[in-house]
């Protein structure tokens, strides 16, 4: 018994020694950080707890759901994607230290989908992924600055910018509500000032604008906003704020029987979240809404059907909403970028792949992507819809009408973009 154990030990050592020798004999492949023969490691920081986490804390689960599906279907050239998620509580200090851990300790290949303008900015300045050559894929903010490839050479935007959205809203108003009194609720910071800039370009004139301070959204404040819109007799009221602002506004409006023509921006306009939080469907009915991706209830859409099936299996009991759809869409695009980066992907080849092929990546959006060698602009527009009697955003008259524009002074044009068919089985080809 003892002798056998010793023999086993000797054999094992010999094998190990040979393997070890062989390993040193084979020239080491130029492996990239976070890429091994079996896996590719990606990292994500976003608020999972705290006031700002509402809705967004579903994004990691959504992305993981897609990656798990991908891994079960062969991964990327046989490598499985692992996503490391850290909670930054929407505090820049935490975002920086968690991103440091991701890059220096967990040694991820790339960061994906970080959330919040202040956080992404702090990370860009302190961690400096650009200098480290770490790609930051598909940031979850509509701040147009991150699309600046000179300033943030490794960062890629994906959401259309706030400026684009305001310009498209302005265009819609010019075409459909000329002569009406327009009211605007906006967040009193850079999010809002981007919106104001967009409306200015579109030439929108407001009868009343109501700024609110970030964090001041509450039932009591919302009653105040409504009082101001009422006093100005606004016919159309635009909600250009975060989800909780739309939420308090619409729920309080229902109580006060205040019903102007609502126009709800995409940031705070996810019907599923709003209804779950207590906004009656009847209040949303006929409101005008904007989104770059198809309606989340549109099961005729092949992407929505595909993503919602995967998500229902991966995270049972969780509603399929806009955050989930966008999270899975970003994961799908990330998978294509990794595939396009070649058999042995590196950080450089990953970014080169987005620069050269990114604009043609298959994804659910109904507007084109703007990636090129000189541009890191993501989606470039929105389709305009109306909320149905059940309170879901749907295309007007059943067909999606999308508009595209830029974050500068470019015109708003009706999109002629034809979305390519989804690759077979929703896997990158």
């Amino acid at each position, binding site marked *: 018994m003892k002798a056998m154990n010793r023999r086993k030990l000797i054999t094992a050592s010999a094998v190990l020694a040979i393997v070890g020798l062989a390993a040193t004999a084979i020239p080491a492949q130029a492996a990239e950080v976070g890429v091994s023969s079996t896996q590719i490691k990606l990292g994500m920081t976003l608020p999972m707890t705290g006031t700002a986490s509402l809705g967004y804390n579903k994004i990691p689960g959504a992305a993981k759901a897609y990656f798990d599906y991908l891994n079960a279907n062969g991964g990327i050239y046989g490598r499985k994607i692992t996503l490391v998620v850290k909670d930054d509580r929407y*505090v*820049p200090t935490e975002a920086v230290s968690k991103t440091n851990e991701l890059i220096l300790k967990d040694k991820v290949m790339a960061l994906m989908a970080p959330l919040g303008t*202040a*956080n992404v*900015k702090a990370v860009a300045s302190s961690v*400096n992924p650009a200098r480290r050559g770490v790609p930051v894929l598909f940031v979850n903010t509509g701040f147009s600055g991150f699309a600046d490839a000179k300033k943030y050479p490794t960062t890629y935007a994906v959401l259309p910018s706030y400026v684009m959205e305001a310009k498209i809203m302005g265009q819609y108003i010019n075409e459909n509500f000329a002569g009406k009194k327009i009211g605007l609720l906006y967040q009193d*910071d*850079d999010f809002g000032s981007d919106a104001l800039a967009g409306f200015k370009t579109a030439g929108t004139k407001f009868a009343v604008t109501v700024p609110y301070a*970030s964090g001041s959204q509450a039932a009591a404040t919302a009653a105040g906003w409504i009082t101001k819109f009422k006093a100005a007799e606004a016919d159309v009221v635009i909600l250009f704020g975060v989800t909780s602002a739309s939420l308090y506004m619409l729920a309080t409006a229902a109580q006060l029987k205040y019903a102007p023509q609502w126009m709800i921006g995409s940031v705070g306009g996810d019907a599923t979240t709003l209804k779950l939080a207590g906004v009656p469907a009847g209040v949303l009915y006929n409101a005008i809404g904007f989104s770059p991706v198809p309606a989340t209830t549109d099961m005729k859409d092949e992407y929505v059907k595909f993503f919602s099936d995967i998500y229902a299996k991966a995270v049972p009991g969780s509603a399929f909403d806009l955050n989930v759809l966008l999270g899975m869409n970003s994961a799908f695009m990330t998978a294509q970028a990794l595939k396009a980066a070649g058999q042995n992907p590196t950080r450089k080849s990953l970014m080169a792949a987005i620069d050269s092929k990114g604009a043609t990546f298959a994804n659910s959006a109904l507007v084109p992507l703007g990636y090129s060698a000189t541009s890191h602009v993501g989606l470039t527009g929105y389709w305009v819809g109306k909320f149905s009697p059940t309170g879901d955003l749907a295309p007007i008259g059943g067909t999606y009408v999308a508009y595209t524009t830029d974050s500068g002074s470019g015109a708003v044009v009706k999109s002629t973009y034809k979305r390519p068919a989804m690759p077979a089985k929703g896997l990158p080809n």
Partner: protein
Amino acid sequence: MHKRHNSSHIIPFILGGVVLYFISGMVDELRVYQGASIAVYVVAISSIILLTGYSGQVSLGNGALMAVGAYAAAVSHISWHIPIILSFFVAVLVAALAGALLGAAAARLSGPYLAGTTLALAIGLPSLANQFSILGGEQGLLFDVGFPPLSLGENFTQYKWFFWIAALAALIMMWLLQNILQSRYGRTWRAGRGNEVAAQLAGINTGRSKILAFTLSAGLAGLAGAMLSMTIGTVSPSAFPLALSFSLMTGAVLSGITTLGGVIIGAVVLVAIPEIADVVAHRLGSSESVTTNLPGLIVSGLLILTVLFVPNGPVEQHRARKARHEAEHNSSKK
């Protein structure tokens, strides 16, 4: 009681600096970054210890005063093009000025009133940044101390540079503070903390001495704020949440709120807690909602446990036990 020296020797601090210099060359970049965070906390916690431990005033507003310092540094650097080194001094001065104003109000308030007032300040002040465009709103301002000088070599990382600046600032501050606390002012504060009426009878102007403590504490907080902004590269309102003020209080209590000596303990614990929590959560295989809330639970739990069982902090506790032991030893000899 042995007689205290009139001034603290600078040599231990220089030695400390030399040790840190060598350590920073040996550990990996993540540890260097954490080292810089520890230095930030050392300064921030000592501002609390000075105020609460020495002068007996509880402020939950030091997070807000850090924000004042951070914004002062960033605005002076960006808008008025003041050299980065000087902007740290601006941070100290502006925060100290704010502290003097607050201290004048605070001198009229006792414990719970002051705590509640500064709590309201900590919640309210950072949001003011949205009110003035020069402060950059929610997305904040960049605060970039620049790259390390080329003479330090190619492989000298940005974080090592942050660490050097932060550690140097912390060492200088600790040395200055040590000297102040051993001066006449330090004794005045301790007298007022023990018994305000007795101190007044002894001819001490307790009001003025409280304001002075508040001013100095605010200056330290301002410096800590500027150092924090340096390590995260930006200044924004969300970097100074109420939770920051709470963490600092925990750090101070853990350090032993009445002794400056333990400050490094509190700072290290604050930086280590998220990592410890991570390890514990993974070991236990806990669910996501437990994992994400564990650091918060540990910070608050430690706060309660320390106040209950080690109210004067581990350093003081150890000292007291040693003194008791010696006393027993002496009496048994007799």
